[in-house]
């Protein structure tokens, strides 16, 4: 079965540094998402992306966050100036049509640790 791949699997950074988390969605999918999960807590929606623009974003997705699809295959999440509370597992997901009765395919996540 096709997979969503995320790199790196672990990222350690200093507070205030910029990080870029990378994702390669399934090739024919059109809708892309970022979620995060703080250790032991709920999965939280960050942003959805379609047709090269953000379609939805949550309150968490403030000006420190941005997403980009730079080359037609990668989908990136950038955090400009990381905070301690950004430490979490970040999941990328994609879906074919973004329809209401469609499942999401998730990557294995990037564990971000901000020191």
């Amino acid at each position, binding site marked *: 079965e096709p997979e*969503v791949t995320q790199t790196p699997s672990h990222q350690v950074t200093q507070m205030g540094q910029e990080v870029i988390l990378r994702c390669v969605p399934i090739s024919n999918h059109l809708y892309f998402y970022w*979620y995060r999960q703080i250790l032991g*807590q*709920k*999965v*939280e*929606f960050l942003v*959805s992306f379609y047709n090269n623009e953000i379609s*939805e974003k949550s309150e968490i997705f403030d000006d420190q966050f941005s997403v980009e699809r730079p080359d037609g295959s990668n989908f990136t999440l950038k955090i400009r100036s990381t905070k301690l509370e950004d430490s979490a597992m970040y*999941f990328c*997901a994609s879906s074919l049509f*973004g329809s*209401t*009765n*469609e*499942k*999401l*395919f*998730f*990557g*294995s*996540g990037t*564990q971000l640790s901000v020191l």
Partner: protein
Amino acid sequence: SQQGEEDPQALSIQEGENATMNCSYKTSINNLQWYRQNSGRGLVHLILIRSNEREKHSGRLRVTLDTSKKSSSLLITASRAADTASYFCAPLGSNYQLIWGAGTKLIIKP
């Protein structure tokens, strides 16, 4: 909040027994999805039940949905050690976003 709330938070059973996990939510939904997460890994889609469906089966999984009670259940029959994982329900709300609960941690004892 529209989030799904799983119950129980943790469940430990013997291999071969059935495991039942419940989910409640607060507002109208388009569908409800169940996902599994093995420790430290990504989320794997298990099953999707539409708002006009009452029951759905997939292998050893059986999902029910009661929209009048805003609740769903996931039954895993004849559990195996490999079923040990966290299970999340994710209702798809009116804003077309999946809203996640904290999950049920299922442990299958050999």
